[in-house]
């Protein structure tokens, strides 16, 4: 059986990773925009 | 109703009125949870692992060979 610790790890991993994803996209957009490389 | 292990289960329901009066139990509903048999499962899992693994290998190998 998956342990309680593993489930907690997985849930927080999902949460933090998803949040980092949003931040990454924003950061990349600003970088591309600055360089005129959007599209 | 999800997440039950293999086996036989019986369920019955009854109503409890707001004044606390208990109704009659319903007749039991019988449920059998049976998973796919182990040999078939392991065969399919092996096929899955081989195909998925080969696919990943073929793409990776092809990419590095043709770069």
């Amino acid at each position, binding site marked *: 059986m998956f342990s309680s610790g593993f489930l907690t790890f997985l*849930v927080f991993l999902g*949460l933090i990773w*998803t949040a980092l994803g949003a931040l990454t996209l924003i950061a990349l957009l600003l970088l591309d925009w600055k360089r005129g490389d959007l*599209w | 109703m999800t997440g039950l292990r293999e086996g036989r289960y019986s369920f019955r329901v009854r109503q409890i009125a707001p004044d606390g009066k208990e109704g009659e139990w319903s007749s039991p509903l019988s449920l059998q949870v049976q998973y796919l048999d182990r040999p078939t*499962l392991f065969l399919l899992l092996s096929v899955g692992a081989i*195909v998925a693994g080969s696919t990943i290998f073929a793409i990776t190998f*092809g990419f590095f060979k043709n770069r």
Partner: protein
Amino acid sequence: MTLAAALNQSTGWAIVISLGVLWVLLGIYWGRRAKTSEGFMLAGRNVGLALGAATAMATWVTSNTTMVAPLLAYEKGVWGMLAYASASFGLLLFAPLAFRIRKLLPNGVTAGDFFRLRYGRLGWAVFLVITLVYSITWLVTMAIAGGKLLEALAAIPFAQGMTLILVVCVLYTLFGGLYAVIGTDFIQSLIILIGIVFIDFVVIQNVEVAAVHTHLAREQPALLDIMMPAALLAIFNNMLFGFGEVMHNNVWWSRAFAMREKIAPKAFFLSGILWFPIPIAAGFIALAAGPLGVNVTDPSKVGPQVAEHVLGLSALGPYAGVIILVVLFCSMASSIDSLLAATSDLLVRDIYEGVFKKSLTPETFRPVAAVCIISVSVIAWLLALSGLPVDQVLFSSGPLVASLIWPVIAGLFWKQLNRTLVILGIVFACGIGLWCYFEVQTYTGALVAAAISMIFTIAARYLGPQPLNPLSS
């Protein structure tokens, strides 16, 4: 209907219409960049990393991700969440394919170009049948999901809600082509990611993960089992279904052609990384149903139902419906627009130009593309209204798309091949895969089809192979 109508009708209409107006205005604004058919279909072939990664990620987040991931977690537990997350591998693996696609087809426009040039008219025809069945059913299931969502959340009649969502997506795709699709995808991707993080955060505030584990161990122990057969099978089957979907479909090939050459592989790889945690985050919402005491009568709605419950518990009660609607609408719109654009591109390039041998000029491409987009949407609209079990057709298309995985790999990377044997393999794989899907177990269809197609394709390398010529448009 198991979700209490969380919004009143007029609020529901207002949200969809105001978001719709925003997308359409942006579509018109961005669409002015599209001066040629290439601009319209491929956004000038110059899309950068941020927009490229976002569009690939957002398109792969469908209402299936936000609604079915919770359902899979609810029915198949931890492995269910991980099985769904493995669909991100399709995006990751498309990165090296995108690299090769740009090298082999520098002036390519659609996936059809590849199949026509590599496998001849017969291979092209087989591909077109498979991809049109898959793409249209995917589009229809999105439209149906949209209609059901508006019905459940805001009591808007199904036909009206579904039509509204389709019309919004058609309009901005019509005006802006791939520029509009990619631009709106970026905004939609942020809304989806932030929305899911927010809802997850609120769930965790209301119930500790340890409490979820305790409840599951007691009441739904199989969801925590490491040896859960159906869930384990789901992993490989879903992975291969995902590979097939991404590797064959013009939604992804058109993006590969639209991004700058060096950017395309990086963008797809990044999109896979960004997509991976979403089914886990969305899936957890469903696992919390039990401990939160949410009575789930329709598992297909467990995600929104739990989300509505916890948002109601927090101070955001009245806004619960708004948040859920906006996140789910974005997840649908980001896929619907891509499907409309990519499928109509196939009709324009492969049928209008390819089969009927007409040529597109700067004056004619917009009307032709418009006819194709509208035709595809009308077909989808009629199918969505028909009440036919389109979602069954979509899931049963797993074997169909999985049969194309190895033909794509071989056609891109190998030096010699027996094309006829490969095409035969696709047909056999489809037939036997479909039989397995219906007669053996649903989680075997894509797996078996991929296996059979793989065997035929590998055999085609050694039995009567012909050298593969460089592809030229």
